[in-house]
């Protein structure tokens, strides 16, 4: 039956993607990036609320994590898309959301909102762990110099916590790229949705889903390269001076060059 696999479909999807596909790819990227950015912001706010002196804020932050880590993302997506309108009796998700500079498809907007809120719950734990990992003496030293809490947090604690937060944050974004496929179910034609539609008209599911797997792999691979770069940059101050790219190339070549000279 392997012969039945139509390779030309796969090659065509990989090497000659049409503009409909490119648009779907672009949707996956911008929805994931937007949801991750807002997720980090929500997570940061929730993490700071969790450490607040005011107990209702702490409770609220706890409830947020409890609910959004404890229910499936797909349920949250449907809830935001259909449920809010029904529950609150107003149209939370317009058919198209107008942001002045650009317009956004209502379903895509709902998807970003749902994914952000879900992501924020996970990011709260990651950010809190990052802040907890910083020695208490850092906050004390900053405050002993006359910095108030917010200044000390912004200038001293958070920059150090960032180094602890970035590796798990990278994993979260990797997940986000893939989880965003769920918003196909509220009608956003992103990567997965595009494959789904193609297969339903051609009845060649294996070919189309192999192609879509390839493209997800491309996205996550590119991201892991970017992530490695960010992590290297952030760890610079820990190790002292960082050699530039050119210096690293020269260093890598030095033993080879020495060997070359020795051979002659």
């Amino acid at each position, binding site marked *: 039956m392997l012969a039945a696999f139509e390779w030309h479909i796969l090659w065509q999807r990989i090497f000659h993607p049409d503009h409909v596909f490119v648009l779907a790819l672009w949707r996956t990227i911008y929805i994931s990036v937007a949801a991750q950015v807002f997720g980090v912001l929500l997570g940061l706010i929730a993490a700071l609320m969790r450490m607040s002196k005011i107990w209702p804020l702490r409770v609220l932050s706890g409830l947020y994590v409890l609910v959004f880590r404890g229910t499936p993302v797909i349920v949250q997506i449907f809830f935001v898309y259909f449920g809010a309108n029904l529950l609150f009796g107003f149209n939370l998700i317009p058919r198209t959301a107008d942001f002045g500079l650009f317009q956004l498809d209502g379903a895509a907007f709902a998807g970003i909102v749902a994914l952000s809120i879900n992501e924020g719950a996970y990011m709260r734990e990651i950010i809190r762990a990052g802040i907890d990992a910083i*020695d208490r*003496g*850092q906050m*004390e*030293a*900053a*405050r*002993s*110099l*006359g*910095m*108030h*809490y917010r*200044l000390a947090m912004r*200038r*001293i604690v958070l*920059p*150090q916590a960032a*180094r602890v937060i970035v590796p798990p944050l990278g994993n979260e974004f990797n997940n986000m790229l893939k989880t965003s496929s769920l918003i196909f179910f509220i009608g956003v034609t992103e990567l997965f949705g595009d494959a789904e539609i193609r297969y339903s008209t051609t009845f060649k599911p294996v070919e189309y889903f192999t192609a879509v797997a390839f493209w997800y792999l491309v996205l996550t691979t590119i991201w892991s390269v970017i992530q490695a770069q960010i992590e290297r940059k952030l760890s610079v*101050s*820990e*190790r*002292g001076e960082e050699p530039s790219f050119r210096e690293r190339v020269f260093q890598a070549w030095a033993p080879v060059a020495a060997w070359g000279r020795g051979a002659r």
Partner: protein
Amino acid sequence: MSSNGFVMSAHEVRKRFGRLEVLKGVSLEVKRGEVVCVIGPSGSGKTTFIRCIHHLEKIDGGRIEVNGHLIGYREQNGKLIEDSERSIARQRAEIGMVFQRFNLFPHKTALENVIEAPVQVRGVPKRQAIQQAEELLRRVGLADKRDVYPGKLSGGQQQRVAIARALAMRPALMLFDEPTSALDPEVIGEVLDVMKELALEGMTMIVVTHEMGFAREAADRVVMMDDGRIIEEGTPEHFFREPREERTKQFLSKILV
């Protein structure tokens, strides 16, 4: 400047952690330019006491004034109410603190550590702050380390940067919390030298330390604490020659071997 002539005056300070009372009424007055060493066994409350002066710990009773201003609290109808975060921060800016474990900011170079507070808290122009910081680093003998990150400095060097960082705020009072007890023996001297020089220049200092050699050379007064109280007070000579209390004698015999 100060209403009662003292840079720091503490009156009947009490502090408890849960059921444990660590300060049972500590009173101490420090004049301008005076260097006071606080000694005592661990658990005697000496570190807690100087942390209270900086309001890193809230106090449960008594009062602390620095330059005539009540620290951490304001008086309202005869009651003490904890001050706002911002005004506590303003007060802390006037008091320098050097920690046992240095607590330098690891993501900033030596110079950046020193200019951070003047620029961010006082709004000093960056160029001016850098000039001042270079001068301070020269004073602690680390002019050549200005662009080095703390991770690449020895303990003694880190502690000297920490002293420069505290001095950059031009404090009226410097607090030292066992500044040499986390250091290797061979670098203790370089930190003590910087502190001695500071004392000679007339800085008002309260130093929690076990370095009796430093006390003898630089201190005007030594205070012995035990079990949350000041049990003996006198010149360094007094402590070397004729300590009065039995517990002081016992303690000194242990640290002077």
